[in-house]
């Protein structure tokens, strides 16, 4: 028991530490494809370090929610990571689905507070960002749930039709949830198009550092889910951790390719994007009900 707990804590730490690296790799890949030099893969670490060392400016209008939100977001991401690691890959039974869904709920805890914090300062940007963030995520959630259901019902076999379709749907959800093009753009600070960045616009210093860390970890959580979805058997393979790392890397690079090959959508087109993913998920469920 204690052993298991220690292992999970160890894994959580490891993954949390490597989480910014994944973001760095994605960014590096994007720049490479664009034929740019770009910052190093370690740049996310530098950013976080810089932010932790800076003073922060807090709006006069803000309440305690503003202080609490980054901490809760960070804690939520960590908790989600814990939960995802608890759902054992390989023999994904109903309990695993329940745990994965719980992980989503925990992430929405953080999102809830982040959205509140966006409204807290009384700035229009924050409100706009919160509104859009909850908008997108509320449409993403059902798709993710169906995908998880279907994939867990697959029983951990590789490359079932339903599993692949579910993985595809989940991939689209991950794009939306990790604020990537075509749903959102992490790199922009153009007020009217940003979503996540608008919400956290008021943050600076160590709070912002926590938020950034939290989003790296969240991305990690999603990538882990995605990796299980695509190659469920990988976790039990020998050299599992290496296979796993490779998977994460592949997913990240795929993400980077998608990001540079499509244009950002208008906000209201994201509904179309997500409903498309919903139909894919539905197709997955139909496939699963046919036993495929």
């Amino acid at each position, binding site marked *: 028991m204690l052993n298991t707990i220690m292992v999970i804590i160890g894994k959580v730490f490891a993954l949390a530490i490597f989480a910014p690296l994944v973001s760095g790799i994605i960014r590096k890949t994007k720049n490479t494809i664009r034929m740019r030099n770009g910052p190093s893969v370690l740049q996310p670490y530098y950013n976080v370090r810089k932010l*932790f060392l*800076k*003073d*922060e*400016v*807090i*709006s*006069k*209008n803000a*309440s305690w929610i503003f202080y609490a939100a980054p*901490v*809760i977001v*960070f*804690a939520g991401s*960590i*908790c989600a990571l814990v*939960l995802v690691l608890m759902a054992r890959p390989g023999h994904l039974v*109903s309990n695993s689905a*329940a*745990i994965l869904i*719980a992980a989503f*709920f*925990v992430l*929405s*805890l953080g999102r*809830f507070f982040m*959205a*509140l914090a*966006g*409204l807290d300062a*009384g*700035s*229009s940007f924050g*409100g*706009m960002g*919160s*509104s*859009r963030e*909850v*908008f997108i*995520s*509320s*449409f*993403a*959630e*059902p798709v993710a*749930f*169906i995908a998880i259901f279907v994939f*867990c019902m697959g029983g951990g076999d590789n490359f079932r039709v339903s599993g692949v379709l579910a993985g595809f749907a989940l991939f689209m959800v991950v794009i939306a949830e990790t604020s990537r093009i075509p749903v959102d753009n992490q790199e922009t600070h153009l007020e009217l198009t940003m979503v996540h960045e608008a919400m956290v616009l*008021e943050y600076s*210093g*160590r709070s912002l550092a*926590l938020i950034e860390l939290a989003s790296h970890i969240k991305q990690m959580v999603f990538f882990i889910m995605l990796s299980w979805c695509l190659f469920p058997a990988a976790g039990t393979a020998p050299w599992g951790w290496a296979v796993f790392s490779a998977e994460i890397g592949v997913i990240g690079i795929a993400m980077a390719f998608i990001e540079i090959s499509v244009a950002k959508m208008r906000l*209201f087109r994201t*509904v179309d994007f997500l409903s498309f993913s*919903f139909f894919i*998920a*539905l197709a997955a469920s139909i496939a699963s*009900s*046919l036993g495929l």
Partner: protein
Amino acid sequence: MITFLPKEFFLFDSLTIFFFAVIGLICIPSAIFSIGYLREEALKKKLISWALLAAFILSMCFVVISGNLFSFLIFWELMSLTSYFLVVLDYKHEKSIRAGTIYLVMTHIGTACLMAAFFILYNYAGSFDYSAVKEAAFALPPNIRNIIFLLLFIGFATKAGVVPMHIWLPYAHPQAPSYVSSIMSGVMIKIAVYGMIRFFVMLLLPAPAWWGAVILVFGIISCLVGVIYALMDHDLKKLLAYHSVENIGIILLGVGAAIFFAARGVIPVAALAMCAALYHLVNHALFKGLLFLCSGSVYKATGLRNIEKMGGLIKTMPATALFFLIGAMGISALPPLNGFVSEWLTFQAFFSGAVESQGAVRIFMIVSAAALALTGGLAAACFVKAFGITFLALPRSAHAREAKETGFMMKTGMALLAVPVVIFGVGAGFIAPVILRVSRAVLGVQNVEVSLYLASVLPVLIAVVVLGTALAVFLWFRFGLRTGQVRYNTWDCGYYALDSRTEYTATAFSKPFRIAFSFFLLPYHKSEKMRDSFYHVSKFMYETHTTLVFRKFFYEPLVRLVYSFAWKVRKLQPGSIHLYILYIFITLVGLIALAAIF
């Protein structure tokens, strides 16, 4: 004539005790809250309010412990009547009169359906007693059973506020004083769910699977429609009322799934679904009661119900804000609070159901789960709006600016509901098995294994991890990392005149949803510019509204139809005595001609 007086007046089984507990859990804090709420009123009004409140609560209790259809009906009607009085307690407003009328008429339609069903049952059972009804139910012809089911479903659904019979709910609940709204929303509509469980699961056995499917489908419709309307509404209490529609939908998801799987013989799933439904029932009672009390507290402090005029209340009313936040987190199903546990159990029920079945049923379960997920996401969005606009940022009106924290009694009332919201979440390990026992008894299966291990452990785990991490970060910030903090204006792009008028509004917040659901909401807007000259617009008005489709395309045409018919009938009586005499003669001649028929 009065030969039908029943023999078994009262009934105590685990279901009644469960509902008793729910009633007590909500009504006591609400009653305490009412002491503070009514403090400034005249003694007469206080006494009337309390007398009505007591009558209301008692009638609910008696509905639950009735052991026969007859007293069930009487107390059901009394419950409607007393709650109607409570709705129109604030009798000077035309709005409350209107709300009361809509409420009473809808309730009456529901009760009429119940009456019809009860009397048909009475015919077959020869008695109003539940035991006789239960015995007779086995022998009922299928079509009669189905008619009874439909009548009872309409009757209970009307009271429960299931879409499309929800029309009264967003009028009546906001119009009642908040401590009453909390009971109405928290408990009264659950009594209808009690009726459904009592009749569909316990009395009219065996229930066919399609009953469960019907309930499930209506549950899905209710939760989606409820939450979408809630997103669009900016009246705090109305918003909460729409959330009641949503949550009743979620409860019905569980009830429907339970009936569905019980009929298909998958008992463990049925037990899990029923457990989830009952768990969500008590949870909704708790956080909805809490939220209504908070809204009452806000109303008392500001005199406002429109959240567009509030803002910044977290600074002036910190306790109310905290309680509201707890309620909002509960209703948004955020772990580790109670709403999370029950919604999550419902998901598990759907998932186990999907695993246990094949083909269309599996898709049906998955789609139901997706609907629930969408509902959950939208509910969270709605409460970000409700809490954010009401309590955060700057006050948007003078009333909100001058708000004062409410008194001790009201705070106590709220706290008594806020604490259980937390306990029912974190302490699910203690609560869930009890509720599982109730649901086993309800389904009449004793030896069914349902593992609630995860439900017991996970909320605690989440609480520990989240709080532990948060505490660690906090300690690190406090003692390890000592960077400075500067308080300054919100970033304003150099405009230097940010005030409450430039804040994001609830209307703006909900705009993406309005557009995404425009196929259902049918929004329309009008804008108006006041110009000083061609170049200078001195004032700009923008209004946007959504169409209440059920009202506009069903109830209003229906009412219009009835009225136009009534006006036509009215022309039959134009005041002419000659015509009247002619009527008598025609009746006479007609009857004589048709005497053979009679």
